[in-house]
């Protein structure tokens, strides 16, 4: 038995080392090398968006914009709450992804939802009951790039006003950046929308 174990362990080690080279080095690096071809490299490197030679974000990663002035003057569309943020509607840190893992019975979660609902209603100048569910719940990743069309519509007035744009203009932009990938839930990409709003406002 012991002799068999020793013999098998020797084979085991050789098998493991060979497979480590094949599956742990050649395979991932091979996929990496193949993904350098045009048409794949952009996605492989994070679907980054550049403006004037500066990387301004990834179209897949939602980072909530911050604004120091009074909330009603805020010019940005906002993402969903992130569990990695310090405040109920604060900016999350994409370096650490994850959800809150709070249950719906957790008093902390009840307080958070109530606070978010209140803050958003005040920011948008609407009744708290009109704030949609995705706006007051933290996403699973903490970097959800999307919001619901309802939450985008709720923010349209304020964003139009604070960027000196017409309501119809901003609504058209929201429609342009709403996608459901053909088979998915319609979602609005916040970063792309904010960049488009700013570009339109700058003329």
């Amino acid at each position: 038995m012991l002799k068999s174990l020793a013999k098998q362990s020797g084979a085991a080690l050789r098998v493991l080392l060979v497979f480590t080279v094949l599956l742990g080095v050649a395979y991932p690096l091979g996929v990496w090398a193949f993904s350098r071809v045009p048409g794949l490299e952009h996605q492989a490197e994070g679907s980054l968006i550049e403006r004037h030679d500066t990387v301004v974000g990834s179209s897949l990663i939602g980072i909530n914009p911050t604004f120091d002035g009074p909330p009603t003057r805020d010019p940005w569309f906002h993402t969903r709450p992130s569990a990695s943020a310090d405040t109920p509607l604060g900016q999350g840190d994409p370096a650490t992804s994850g959800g809150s893992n709070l249950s719906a019975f957790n008093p902390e979660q009840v307080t958070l939802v109530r606070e978010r609902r209140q803050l958003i209603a005040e920011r948008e100048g609407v009744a708290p009951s009109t704030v949609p569910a995705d706006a007051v719940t933290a996403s699973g990743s903490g970097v959800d790039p999307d919001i619901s069309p309802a939450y985008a519509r709720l923010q349209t007035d304020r964003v139009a006003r604070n960027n000196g744009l017409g309501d119809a203009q901003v609504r058209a932009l929201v429609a342009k950046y709403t996608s459901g990938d053909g088979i998915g839930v319609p979602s609005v990409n916040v970063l792309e929308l904010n960049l488009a709003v700013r570009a339109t406002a700058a003329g």
Partner: protein
Amino acid sequence: MSDLAAGLVQAAILLAALALVYRPFGDYLARVFTSERDWKIERGLYRLFRVNPESEQRWSTYAVSILAFSFVSIVLLYLLQRLQSVLPWNFGRGAIEPGMAFNTAISFVTNTNWQSYSGEVAMGHFVQMAGLTVQNFLSAAVGLAVAVVLVRGFVRRRTDRLGNFWVDLTRGTIRVLLPISVVAALVLVAFGVVQSLRSGVTVANPDGTSSTIPLAPAASQEAIKQLGTNGGGIFNANSAHPFENPNSWTNLIEIFLLLVIPVSMTRAFGTMVGNRKQGYTLLSVMAALWGAMLAVAWWAETHPNGPAALLAGASLEGKEQRFGIGQSVLFATSTTGTSTGAVNSMHDSYSGLGGGVPLLNMLLGEVTPGGVGAGLYGILVLAIIAMFLAGLMVGRTPEYLGKKLGRREVTCAAIAMLAMPTVVLLGTGAALLVPGEVASALSNTGPHGLSEVLYAYASAGNNNGSAFAGLTVTSDWFQSSLGIAMLLGRFIPIIAVLCLAGSLAAQRKVPETAGTLPTASPLFGALLAGTVVLVAALTFIPALALGPIAEALA
């Protein structure tokens, strides 16, 4: 498209795709493990391994090979983590501390992929690729090998030879897992999954702040993570992270990948035993339970329960906007019904009943349809138990697929079946008794807190790896006890199943008589489904009543 419609469309495409590949892929799997011919690359590998592919092993030697292989795998993975600070591509990440390295090494070698670390924070690219990705392949190939040995036990007569572990491991890897992973990884990249060797990129946000977005070789690991029903994500948020699962298409592809081998293995089984209806019966039991679980979870999540969800208006905490509820519960049901454990939404934030479904899915013993290989041998063990129960009712020695189920066979099956509940209940009970452990680990209290602890041991004992992630599991107690739970939950059933295969293969085939219960029939399907549910119900109802059931009724 509404959330409901998108979910239904995705489920429909998923089922159609699985139906399409079921026959050809199932038959291919059967050929992989019955073919006499080695591929050229395999012959080269056997020379490097210095093993003789012609020499077949007894069940006990086969078991020793698996244990030896798993042991050296755990040691190497442990060392890679401990030595991370001197390995390339660590981007400043230091050594993983011993408790976490121990837990993670066992976790990936046992196909659990429970993660007590935060991916993007703790693990550099080298450990991810050379350590974790490798075990994503090999642990799945071990599961396949064990399942194939059990099937050989039914097929072969009067022999003590059951195949060669190194050959089965190599074929599963080279002919099944690797080629599909290469294609899947590239398709995932095309749809937006990252495959980068950079540590990350600093971005100048439009509002004037700046952030660092981590990057990683994610696509190559994502493909095998799903295909091998592993589940350990490169990023902490796992498949909820947009870099691992950016849209509905990738979500669909990932669910397909994690289901395709467990589902098709029933066809491979039918093909190998020479009666495909036997495979369809097993598949219908798996599919019926999967469908029932999906329906309950979907209903529960679309009917908010708990004050915070009612206040928010929908159960969207921990779910991604692009997936909504439908695509989240589809993923959750499939990932816990197989032993994958990847998540695209945070199960801890599900409602009482909605979170109870993933938990129950694991407690059924991972047979809806179960992990790669593990699902097939799991359901075959339960089929033997079902035949045993039926035999007791009529007072006749039970048979299955022409083999008598005597004392030795039933004992092996019972050990394989009881290992998981023992580990889960003793582990949960012990964790609750250790002073101070649970109080400092829980993020939620009351029934939900109990669910978090039960979920952790159910996940470890079943080698699933998903989590009610609010539980902080970095204390020495949790790292070590969950590590041991994963080991026992994996290797006790494996050894019992190999022993079972050995004693089945030694028998001659008994002819079918009028007294034989036909096992390719709806009657047997119902008996089997009843056994699966009954065993789990008898074992776990007290624990479930105090956790998810209490919460759902609150």
